[in-house]
């Protein structure tokens, strides 16, 4: 089973030094996430979930503990090696989309391939980026710039960008934080579809209903995992969308 673990955390601790005060953001988290899982990490602000997310995303290194990502011991890597790991093994989706403005959707999606160590031929870059955009349902808008796209569409571009290097892990930090309910459900639909195709997803959110689209929920408090269980009444995006439309319809009729 350990061979199958994409993420293996062993007693991870993170201590920040802010002035004279030591802040213990993460206090000993051990966690296994297997290939093909869809995990939502929840918790209020200050629970340490963002810090844990940065550690899992190789943006930051833990103060203590061991972290294996796709079999690689990440704790021992230097700055450049972490950058390479982020490039090849992790796809990021952020709350604020974080697309490059005045750059087309296609070029945004091509970006991660620019930093691949063994360079990707130009025609393959275009081919892979186009495919990734088609996968998230934006095949017809590859030339659009972020300011010509809706929030949901921008997030889809970000997801396509995260997938283009075929990472072992898709990491989403509050992916629906800036989106309305319907678009949020649509994005969860994209996640569920990708997960069905075998992509491992770890998502941080503070919304319970969004977390219910995942297969497994982890709740954090004060830097520790307080709950880790399988979602029982899992929501399905297609059903939720239909329900939402019916609700809209009834509001209109009664008005």
């Amino acid at each position, binding site marked *: 089973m350990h061979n199958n673990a994409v993420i293996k955390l062993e007693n991870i601790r993170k201590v920040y030094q802010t002035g004279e005060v030591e802040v213990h953001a993460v206090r000993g988290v051990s966690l296994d996430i297997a290939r093909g899982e869809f995990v939502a990490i929840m918790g209020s602000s200050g629970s340490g979930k963002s810090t844990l997310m*940065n550690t899992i*995303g190789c*943006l*930051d290194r833990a103060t203590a503990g061991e972290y294996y990502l796709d079999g690689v011991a990440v704790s021992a890597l230097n*700055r*450049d090696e972490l*950058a*390479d790991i*982020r*490039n*090849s093994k992790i796809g*990021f989706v*952020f709350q604020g989309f*974080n*697309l*490059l403005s*005045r*750059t087309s959707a296609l070029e945004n999606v091509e*970006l*991660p391939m*620019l*930093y*691949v160590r063994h*360079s990707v031929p130009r025609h393959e870059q275009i081919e892979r980026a186009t495919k990734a955009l088609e996968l998230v349902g934006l095949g017809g808008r590859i030339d659009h710039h972020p300011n010509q796209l809706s929030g949901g569409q921008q997030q889809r571009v970000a997801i396509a*960008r995260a997938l283009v*290097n075929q990472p072992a892990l898709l990491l989403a930090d509050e992916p629906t934080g800036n989106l309305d309910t319907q678009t949020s459900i649509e994005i969860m639909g994209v996640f569920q579809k990708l997960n069905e195709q075998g992509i491992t997803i770890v998502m941080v959110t503070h919304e319970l209903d969004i977390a219910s689209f995942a297969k497994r929920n982890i709740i954090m408090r004060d830097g520790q995992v307080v709950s880790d269980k399988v979602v029982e009444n899992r929501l399905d995006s297609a059903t939720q969308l239909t329900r939402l439309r019916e609700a809209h319809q009834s509001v209109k009729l009664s008005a």
Partner: protein
Amino acid sequence: MRVFATFRIALRALRRNKLRTLLTMLGIIIGVTAVIAAISIGNGAKVQVEAQVASLGQNVLTVFPGSFSTGGARGGWGSRSTLTAEDAQAIMREVDNVVAVSCEIRDRNQVLANGRNWNTSMMGESPDYLSIRAWGLTSGAMFTESDVRSAAKVCIIGKTVADELFNGQDPIGQTLRIRDIPFKILGVLQSKGVNFFGQDQDDTVVIPYTSAMRRVSGRDFLSAILIQADKAEHMERIQTEAAAVLQQRRGGREPDFTVRSQLELAEMATATAKTMTLLVGGVAAISLVVGGIGIMNIMLVSVTERTREIGIRMAIGARGRDILLQFLIEAVTLSIIGGVLGICGGILVSKIISAKADWPTVTSNTSIVVAFLFSAGVGIFFGFYPARKASKLDPIDALRYE
């Protein structure tokens, strides 16, 4: 990381802020324009002076008599009447590597021919005079050594004299009267133009120095002795040895002559041009440095503005080096485009100065290459700090930056 792709990113970033890009480049543009124009003007002056010095002849030294002084009144240089033809012969005989010597007598005289008259410079010279001054004849021939021995009444004339007196007719074989003495015209000199003292070198009549002494001026001393060395590197030694020979002939008396080298003359003439070039070049170099600081300033602003972009790039796998290269290439692109525009501007300004101010300019390829490399260097030097700052950013902080 692929440099070409980075170059494309840099160009796009620069296109986004066209006005800012142009203003940033302006410092480099002005600096390089000034450098190229200054060097072109300096080179032009140098070439002109060199041409004028060369018109004096190849490797020429001149002996002038010293100043005449009697009873407290002192004459100027050349006023002494102590330089003789024997001095010239002694130099030719005793100093090595001297290929030719000419005795010179200068005088101004009214000349008549063809029913017209003209006041011109009369030069008494040896037959070697033309070879010393690297001066050719358009027609006819130079007088000979036997003409000198016999103080023959023969002459060659400059182009201005030919034009003024003969007005298009062939002067060869005609008679020219100097102080009523008839001289037969043997040849016409090629045009040499104005020398750097502003004299028309073509306004001259050359006769054997013996004829000038005995028949025209009635004096037995020379105005100068021209000495030609075989090679430039012997000139310094010849200068000393010629002075020693002349001093020896004068026994214990005070030296009453000066030996001047053409090199000294050339140095004097180019010194002014050099100073000007240095001055303008210095100002231009300062302008380049100021331009570089402008680039650094804008790059620092750009790094701050694009902190979030840097964070995104790092999150998706850009190494610090990739970010460094991106911003460095952007700075270098900025300075190189500025440099190229400056080179074009410099060439244009040189051409305008040539055309409007009638000042020759020579734009050398070396100055263009140096200006180009220098502007690239400015980009690297002043772009490095901001680029390094960008590459050292923490990805998490950069992503959170608002």
